[in-house]
């Protein structure tokens, strides 16, 4: 298992390199000019200087390697310095945003907690709702509950978040006035009341995100439970005289969780992607919203870094899913 994990880790490096190259080339070949917004009255020499100041002076491959070094070598050093008060990264050039002229990673670190709070809570809530639905609808296959569950998950699949978001805002924030429609990121949680305010403002974005997760995971849970419920070992367990609760919740559930756990791991990056829309709707200033604003402002270093962070998330969770699958299911050992 360890060799397999190490092999997968080593394989992830060329994947990430390829993705970073693809993102870099996409941005590079895009026929837009970062200097397009500069007034025509600015003389050409000055424009050339500005171009160099943005780091656009050198040829393409030099800039690519420079970005790689900055991202994989200097930024970790900055993090290390920050954690242990050392000075490795002193005076080294970091990835600089064109919008704010400050290091990209600093802004990302500021924005990350909001996204993780909302996305993480949504994912956990979604899983907690999905698992019981999946288990029960498999146990009572073709019952009214199962049919209703199938219908509701189909709806969850089909209604896009940019429709549920405004819809929930109209119902719960405007008509009923129960919940705020805008997520206030400046809100500080320090006592019980402020915690309740935080909880209230999180409900809507979390529900919108959780809807998608719930639909997907409960389908998988149901299918996986159905696969296992008819197996011989289930009949054996019943014949031994075990109670129904033990048979379903211990014997069947443990075996059917194996594929579901990997699906949960694989779905994690997708929900970060889906969070882009949710963040725009509820005005959460997380990394999704950061990506959108950076795109409209033509802030290429920021866009490049953020897209690459999304890619890292995907590769990382794919790896986790693969390793988990091997760990949980002794029949599947890759080495």
């Amino acid at each position, binding site marked *: 298992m360890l060799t397999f994990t190490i092999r997968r880790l080593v394989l992830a490096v060329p994947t990430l390199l390829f*993705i970073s190259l693809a993102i870099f080339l996409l941005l590079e070949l895009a*026929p837009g000019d970062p200097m397009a917004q500069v007034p025509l009255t600015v003389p050409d020499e000055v424009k050339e200087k500005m171009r160099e100041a943005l780091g656009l002076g050198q040829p393409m491959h030099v800039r690519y390697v420079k970005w790689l070094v900055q991202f994989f070598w200097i930024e970790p050093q900055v993090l290390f310095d920050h954690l242990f008060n050392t000075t490795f990264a002193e005076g080294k050039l970091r990835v600089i945003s064109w919008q704010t002229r400050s290091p990209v990673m600093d802004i990302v670190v500021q924005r990350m907690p909001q996204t993780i709070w909302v996305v993480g809570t949504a994912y956990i809530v979604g899983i907690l709702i999905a698992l019981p639905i999946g288990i029960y609808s498999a146990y009572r296959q073709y019952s009214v509950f199962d049919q209703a569950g199938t219908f509701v998950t189909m709806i969850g699949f089909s209604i896009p978040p*940019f429709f549920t978001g*405004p819809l929930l805002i*109209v119902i719960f924030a405007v008509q009923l006035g129960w919940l705020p429609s805008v997520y206030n990121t400046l809100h500080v949680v320090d006592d019980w009341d402020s915690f309740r305010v935080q909880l209230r403002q999180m409900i809507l974005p979390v529900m919108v995100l959780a809807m998608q997760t719930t639909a997907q995971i409960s389908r998988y849970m149901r299918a996986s439970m159905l696969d296992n419920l008819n197996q011989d070992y289930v009949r054996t367990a019943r014949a031994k005289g075990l109670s129904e609760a033990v048979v379903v919740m211990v014997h069947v559930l443990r075996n059917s969780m194996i594929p579901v756990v990997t699906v949960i791991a694989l779905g994690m990056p997708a929900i970060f*992607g889906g969070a882009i*829309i949710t963040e725009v709707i509820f005005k959460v200033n997380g990394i999704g919203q950061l990506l959108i604003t950076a*795109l409209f402002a033509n802030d290429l270093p920021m866009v490049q870094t953020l*897209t690459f962070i999304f890619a890292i998330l995907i590769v990382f969770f794919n790896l986790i899913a693969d390793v988990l699958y091997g760990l949980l299911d002794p029949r599947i050992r890759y080495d």
Partner: protein
Amino acid sequence: MTDMSNPAPGQKSRSQLQDVWGQFRKHKGAMLGGGFLAFITLAVLLGPYIWALDPQKIDIRNKDMRPIYTALFSSDAKVAWAHPFGTDQLGRDGLANMLAGGRASMAVGWAAMLLTLFIGTAIGVVAGFFRKLDGPLMRLTDLFLSLPILPLLLVAVTLFREPLRGSLGPEGGMFILIVAIIGITSWMPTARIVRGDVLALKEREFVLAARSIGTRNSNLITRHILPNVLSPIMVSATLGLATAIITESALSFLGVGFPSDFPTWGKMLADAVDRMENFPERVILPGMAISLTVLSVNYLGDGLRDALDPRIRGR
């Protein structure tokens, strides 16, 4: 197989297509979904000829009309049969806009789905059929699967928008860009499924028989392999249509879709969000249109999967 060549006495032989149709008809959701999809497609195709109002015509006197059903619960609402879905803040007709927007959304959906299928099937068949290309092509598929799709879509659309608009016109350029990008970023599941099926088919006797009478590879693929992988392709086609419609609407919603005077469902929804409190129908109508279309496509796919799977069929 035997009952097909040798029907029992007094029983008519049934073709495979009849069997599939028989199973498909049993799935109520799929029948409803298929019906609704046909209805929407016909409506957006023929609707603009029947409801011949120009969706872009500005009629400021009749602005901010409510849809006809609001008269049921509020008697002083501004409604008229001339505008059954109401009008927007510039007096443009709601129904005409819905039809025009649906045309754009469905066109993008169908075109992107066909492109996805084409790329996916081609790569899947080639990877499954030629052993030498299997490794590289599947690694490529894995790489594409680890790309962050939505961020990349956003990046590509914003960056390539201006030049394509210049060369192909604002609508045509955007259409080609969106279709191409959705196609390039969503062929991977189809390719994987098709490859798996082709790998299994390749070892079957009929392929060996065809090869032994000297069938060339190209004929082998088009005559023997492709017809047999049609069912997984059709199922992934429905999934592709649903994702393409949602992706296009999401792009329009985030403001990187079609130009502002060109309605699509996603764009109408996005434009109406600001005035949602007073005119909820402007969000709900396009939103319902997107959701119902996608829902019906998903149900259609569910039914197709059941109908085309011989293990489930006939049960």
